[in-house]
């Protein structure tokens, strides 16, 4: 589902952001991608949603390979993978429903179907009653739910989340995590970048992949689940 094979990403000024990183997240798997600031988490996610291409190696996600996908075709990938960001990236001045519907409209879905599906997804993330509210009037947790609903509209096979709980309080973070776990339980692969160790500790069953200065430092799956705590240190 998600696979990095010997991926190196080098920037002209910054140098190597990723150095020979390989890991795989299977269908239906949930993994945390962790590490300090500058460890390469965001670069990994950028490569995965093809906002950027690796200098060496190959990134594969939902059947799309970085070697075969051109920038002009990225839209195809983006309809198969859901993305969630720390800063929500919602359209201000529009309602929760409009924000979710927007992602469907851009794919050319018929208008009637758009509203029906957007409403259903808002209900799924527990926001049916807030469909008509402007997103800037919603709490951080609610905004992240709207952004999750938007990520799910095209029924993606994998969900990539970049510090989705970074701007949320503990209660809202837990709510989002439960939502992700629920989606994962239905078979969706989830890769969630976070540096929140408390959160990682709270979910001992979830795989941890740790990056350090652009290199793979730890993978609880490779190390065996009993060894997982090492990744949190």
């Amino acid at each position, binding site marked *: 589902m998600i696979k990095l094979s010997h991926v190196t990403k080098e920037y002209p000024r910054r140098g190597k952001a990723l150095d020979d990183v390989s890991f795989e997240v299977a269908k239906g798997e949930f993994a945390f991608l962790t590490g300090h600031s500058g460890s390469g988490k965001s670069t990994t996610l950028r490569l995965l949603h093809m906002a950027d291409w690796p200098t060496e190696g190959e990134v594969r996600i939902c059947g799309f390979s970085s070697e075969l996908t051109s920038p002009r075709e990225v*839209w195809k990938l*983006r*309809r198969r993978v859901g993305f969630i960001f720390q800063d929500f*990236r919602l*359209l201000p001045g529009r309602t929760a429903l409009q924000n979710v519907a927007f*992602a469907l409209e*851009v794919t050319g879905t018929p208008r009637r179907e758009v509203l029906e599906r957007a409403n259903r997804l808002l209900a799924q993330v527990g926001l049916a009653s807030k469909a008509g509210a402007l997103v800037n009037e919603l709490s951080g947790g609610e905004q992240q739910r709207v952004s999750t609903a938007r990520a799910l509209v095209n029924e993606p096979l994998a969900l990539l989340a970049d510090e989705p709980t970074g701007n949320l309080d503990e209660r809202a973070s837990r709510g989002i995590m439960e939502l992700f776990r629920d989606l994962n339980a239905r078979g969706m692969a989830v890769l969630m970048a976070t540096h929140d160790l408390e959160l990682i500790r709270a979910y001992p069953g979830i795989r941890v992949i740790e990056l350090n200065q652009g290199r793979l430092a730890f993978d609880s799956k490779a190390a065996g689940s009993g060894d997982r705590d090492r990744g949190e240190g």
Partner: protein
Amino acid sequence: MYAIREAVAAIRRAPVLLVLSAAMVALALYVVGLFAVATYNLHEALGRIEERVEVVIYLRDDARDEELRLLEEDLAGMDEVLRVRHFTKDDALARARADLPEFEDLFRDLDVNPLPASLEVELVPGFRTPEGVARVAGRASIYPSVEDVRYGDEWVDRLYLLRRIGGIATAVLGAAFGAVAALIIATAVRIALFARREEILIMRLVGATNGFIRRPFLLEGALTGLIGGLLSAALTYASFHAVSTLIFRLEWIPIEWVVTGVVSGGLFGLVASAFAIQKYLREI
């Protein structure tokens, strides 16, 4: 359909942005409009003066009819010549009487008509140049029955020079104003697009194709340009009307010019949007 809905929604969400951009476009095109009115009127005035450029051929009293007929036919056959009118000695006297009533007595007492017969040659527009006039005059003066050829060579030269300077000034200034207007429109559209960068980014993130992202922005750009164009036409007309009633009479520019101005506003808006959006689509 989505593109139209989205463009309308965007305008309703941020009408101030559209009004400001359209106002910038309108001001840029307003300058072009004023220039067009000035140029058109100058052109018309010169045209009216130029209509008076003609060649007058005075004929000898002993000119033979046969030769005169040949001369007339020869001149009428020239590319430069629009019309040849023959005035007899009597016509000349009648005209002199009408034009100079103060010499009425003098003309009445004449035993012999001293005024010569003449041919007045009107030229085709485009040939009312020093060269055109000289060619016609040159051809006529070969005929022995021609006494003299007058064509006001000095003022024809000056008029022609004025017209050439006018033409060059129009082309250079017009191009400069047009370029400035295009730049201002491009800037206005880019500012409007910059305000919506985030939206473009999000559209790309959720899998919109470039074409899909582009369409509402192109529509908005074209609309901004068109509104600006219409506004500038209104402003130009208001200024024209004010000058025409308060200062001196002016001619309003042909409707084709107005339509061209408004349509080019829309086109500029469209092209500027296309360039600006392309930049964002590459960046994000």
